[in-house]
């Protein structure tokens, strides 16, 4: 099995989406896509996420392709579940969006893919989202985590409005607030500055962050 995971990992490093999907298709013929997710894709994502967080020779193309691979496998699992009428448990509910004035959507879309792959129900509000829209949606869908993304420093400072909105409505501790984007890696102090409950160094690691934040909500 270690060989299988290592071979699959190389597709991530080479940003080879078609190769990865063909590999999983072949493997799933004898097993299932569901099993491929837990036995191959998730451990590989974890390994890749750690590399992305700790080394600087991982790039967006590789991360993006990893997200697309996860998305494609997720679709196949959905079909598989539909055919066999299997219900799956939802890990948690999250609301995502790029903060007011920010239009750098790629990172957010990748977080959406990885969270969905990990069983989260994700409501992606898109770009240029106001603080009150994040909080309104989180209340509407009973989300435990709001995830806001920004690339530029100026836009990231708008995120403090989400903290204020949560505080003003008495929702602190009930809905957690995660932030992400390049600027938070460059300026780690910004996480506290905007009053966030946490950040992740990349889209893959966002899953662990959201899981931890949800645990805090649940106590």
């Amino acid at each position, binding site marked *: 099995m270690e060989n299988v995971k290592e071979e699959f990992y190389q597709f991530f490093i*080479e*940003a080879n*989406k*078609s190769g990865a999907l063909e590999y999983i298709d072949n493997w799933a013929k004898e097993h299932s896509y569901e099993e491929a997710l837990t036995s191959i894709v998730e451990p590989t994502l974890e390994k890749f996420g750690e590399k992305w967080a700790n080394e*600087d*020779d991982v*790039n*967006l*193309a*590789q991360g*993006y*392709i990893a997200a*697309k691979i996860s998305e494609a496998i997720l679709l196949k699992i959905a079909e598989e579940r539909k055919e066999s009428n299997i219900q799956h448990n939802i890990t948690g509910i999250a609301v995502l969006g790029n903060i007011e*004035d920010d*239009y750098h*959507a*790629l990172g957010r*879309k990748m977080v959406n893919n990885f969270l969905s792959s990990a069983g989260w129900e994700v409501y992606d509000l898109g*770009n*240029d989202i106001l603080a009150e829209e994040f909080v309104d949606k989180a209340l509407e869908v009973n989300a435990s985590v709001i995830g806001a993304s920004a690339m*530029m*420093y*100026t*836009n990231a400072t708008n995120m403090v409005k989400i903290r204020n909105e949560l505080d003003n409505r008495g929702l602190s501790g009930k809905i957690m607030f995660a932030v992400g984007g390049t600027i938070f890696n460059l300026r780690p102090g910004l996480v506290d500055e905007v009053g966030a409950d946490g950040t992740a160094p990349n889209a893959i690691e966002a899953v662990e962050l959201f899981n931890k934040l949800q645990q805090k909500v649940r106590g």
Partner: protein
Amino acid sequence: MNSIQRVFATINSEYRDKIALSLTASLYGAKLINCPLHEYYTEPKKYVEGQIRVYEELEPDIIFSPFSLPLFGKAFGSKIKIFDDQPPNLVKPIVRKVEDIRNLDFEKALNSLEVAYFIESIGGLRSALGQDVVIAGICIDPFALPVMLMGLGEWLDLLLSDPDEANKLILQTSNFFLEVTDKMFDAGATSVVLPSVFINPTIVTIEIAKNLMKNASELFSKVKGPIVLHSAGARLNPFLKIYNNLPNVVAFVTDSKDELSTSRQLMSNGQTIIGNLEGPDLEKDSKEIISRKTIEILEKIGHDANFIFGTSGGDIPLNTPIENIKVIKETIENYYAR
């Protein structure tokens, strides 16, 4: 020595009277003339007015044309947003589906208000500042232009899933690039600066970069003047081997995270290093910190004959106190007066 003599003496490894200074203060000119950004990024006269003040107040040796790559996207019909406190940003790319690539009107874009804005800004700066100053025309390279037309994710997708279609698009964006750089030089640009917003180690693998740059030698040899490659917020060193022998490339703006001694080793043709004080940090750092960082850079590479002190990364933020910028030049002068 005037600025243009100082900069070219540096590039040609000749005697220079002092280290040249490059400040990415494209945006900052708006602050100095108190100009709303929706005017600054659409009216060449306002931009020129702002940069004249940059030249007078901050005394750099290099003045930049507008540093806003999304405007090139707008030339094709992509939607941008102009903010109150930062350069324009891409909001909605014109290409929604890959098939839309075929409908892109390169001729119309070349004659657009946005391209005219860049060219008239350069022409206005040359008329106003005379022949003594380096005017650097910031242009989008053919590999990054698709990002402004279809978005980063979609461009990555196309490159990785349909290389033939991607290459067809690069051929078109390459022709556009040559036409725009021609216009920039004709208008009075001393050099063109190409921010590597796509081909850099945070975005693509080195294999993708090598593949994309296969024809760059031929392309860059057709550019009518000197080219400066700008690291644009990502480390340059990992990809310097790819860039090292490109024709007409006389200098590199390194990133603040690049180890400059490594940069020097990798530039086997003795190209000029520009950098590497992080420009966006000037807003938050104190004068003392900026001065210390400036000295640290000078200690590392100030002795290098092919070195220009410059800010790296993006534009100096609008709300940066002017004293935080002026302290750079003061520190450099004091350092060499010791």
